[in-house]
């Protein structure tokens, strides 16, 4: 382990990673000391969307399957964590992971019909699935119907068991840990045979089949991990906000499309692009939502307009996202060149 860290620090990317990780670990302490709850909350949301956008990008960037329905997995993860906590007194320390697994199983079940569709037909169907899930949860009494579910305030000695803390500070560390776990699973995955096969499917399914690849099988693998970590993102939402309702967690714009924009803004052909995109996009969107929209209450939907402007800017200025733009400007090593320096 120590050897691994030593070697990692010799590599330039490893040094960047160490610096960013250190900043992330110290930042919440600073927010707490200086009493900056808005910044802390924004950082938590950045991390939550980082987890989900990276998971989403396993399907879009690696496998070429554009999903506008990831709110389904977010919502299923959020509801599962909440129901386990509320009805069965299961600690969210377990519930978050069960939520991820349930979301992953839902992903596999949806994959069977969805992966019969290609390109834009797949994307359209994912929108439909998201709306269907919202309607199901609205009319399902067991999960609280349209009113949703709220978890009560627990006494002091149960705070740790129910993961209930004031503000976002503690949850930032939870989200950092889960993002770390995701990196530990996703990075080896995309560097393995599976990662190569997913990219082959993205580039050309017919060519992939001629190389012995079963596209459906590997799309299902991508779907499993994509839904798993998006569901875990939903679990973080539940413990932080203690309230889930179908309109919020299954929302097309503020969940599915947000994840999509974060991913595309960061750069879908980059492993860490979605994290970069989340950390750029979420603070902008939060700022607009909290400060600007509240100042112009009559212009309801102003934040969605701002989203439109951002999307327009990406497509005009950096169609390959921030990471693609940095690469083109020479701030990052090109992908073609990194192929050469890969270790034997």
């Amino acid at each position, binding site marked *: 382990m120590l050897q691994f860290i030593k070697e990692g620090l010799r590599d330039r990317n490893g040094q960047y990673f160490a610096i960013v990780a250190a900043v992330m670990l110290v930042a919440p302490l600073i927010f707490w000391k200086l009493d900056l709850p808005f910044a802390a909350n924004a950082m938590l949301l950045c991390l939550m969307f980082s987890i989900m956008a990276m998971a989403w990008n396993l399907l879009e960037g690696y496998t070429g399957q554009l999903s506008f329905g990831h709110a389904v997995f977010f919502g299923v993860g959020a509801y599962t964590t909440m129901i386990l906590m509320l009805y069965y007194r299961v600690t969210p320390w377990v519930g978050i992971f069960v939520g991820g697994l349930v979301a992953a199983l839902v992903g596999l079940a949806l994959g069977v019909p969805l992966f019969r569709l290609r390109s834009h037909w797949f994307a359209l169907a994912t929108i439909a699935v998201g709306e269907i899930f919202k309607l199901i949860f609205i009319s399902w009494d067991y999960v609280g119907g349209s009113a949703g579910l709220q978890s009560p305030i627990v006494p002091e000695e149960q705070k740790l068991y129910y993961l209930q803390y004031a503000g976002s500070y503690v949850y930032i560390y939870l989200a950092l840990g889960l993002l770390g776990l995701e990196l530990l699973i996703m990075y080896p995955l995309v560097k393995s045979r599976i990662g190569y096969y997913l990219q082959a499917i993205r580039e050309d399914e017919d060519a992939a*089949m*001629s190389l012995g690849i079963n596209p459906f099988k590997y799309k299902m693998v991508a779907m499993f991990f994509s839904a798993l970590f998006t569901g875990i993102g939903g679990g973080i939402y539940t413990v932080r906000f203690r309230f889930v309702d179908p309109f919020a967690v299954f929302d097309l714009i503020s969940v599915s499309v947000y994840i999509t924009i974060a991913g595309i803004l960061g750069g879908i052909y980059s492993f860490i692009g979605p994290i970069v995109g989340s950390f750029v996009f979420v603070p902008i969107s939060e700022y607009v939502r909290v400060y600007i929209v509240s100042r112009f209450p009559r212009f309801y939907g102003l934040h969605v307009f701002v989203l439109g402007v951002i999307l327009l800017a990406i497509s005009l200025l950096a169609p390959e996202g921030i990471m693609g733009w940095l690469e083109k400007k020479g701030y990052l090593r090109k992908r073609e060149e990194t192929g050469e320096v890969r270790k034997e």
Partner: protein
Amino acid sequence: MSLLEVKGVVKRFGGLVAVNDVSFSMDEGERVGLIGPNGAGKTTLFNLISGYYRPDKGRIFFDGRDITGRKPYEITKLGVGRTFQIVKPLSNLTVLDNVAIGALLRHPDVNEARKRAEEVLKLTGLYEKRNMRAGSLNLPEKKRLELSRALATEPKLLLLDEVVAGLNPSEVDELLKLLREINESGVTILMVEHVMRAVMNISERIIVMDYGVKIAEGTPQEIASDPRVIEAYLGREEL
């Protein structure tokens, strides 16, 4: 026992019979050419053998197994490699990664597969371009990439769909030499080709198709003098 046996396959597209009751067989180690005018059904026949189309009638056997209606990736696993006439590079990946993905079929370890891919690229002459984006290759290079990728899957039977087209004469000679080497290493080759010089040169046996039907089969000499073949290509002489 023959390696490939095609028995009376038929493929219809609407009212058009693209492949009509075609039968032939190939022994291990053979080099067979498949020729015919445009629209004769050669590529359709390839798609039937490699599993991209399911025949409406007839059966296909490979290596003693009935592969009729099997999926393309299953047929690749059994040992049939193919190239596409309309090239299908994995454009955003490097040349090396394109070939490495083929090699992953028999070598699941990524580093091992990349090593295998490098060997294949040295053989096919694309090694110098290994770190280029596959999409940025020119057409003859993309054709060689198709061949490299198919080779990396370590096939017993190689289906080549017009790999020579678009090459200049010295490149053609080079590629034919390479195909002979591949064949001598034990790979059976079935090739569709329009460049007559190439196909006459390399094939031990030639099958001729026209309007979906097999009209002739024999050695290059026999084929070149077969009146049915001449008629298919040049039309009947009107007196």
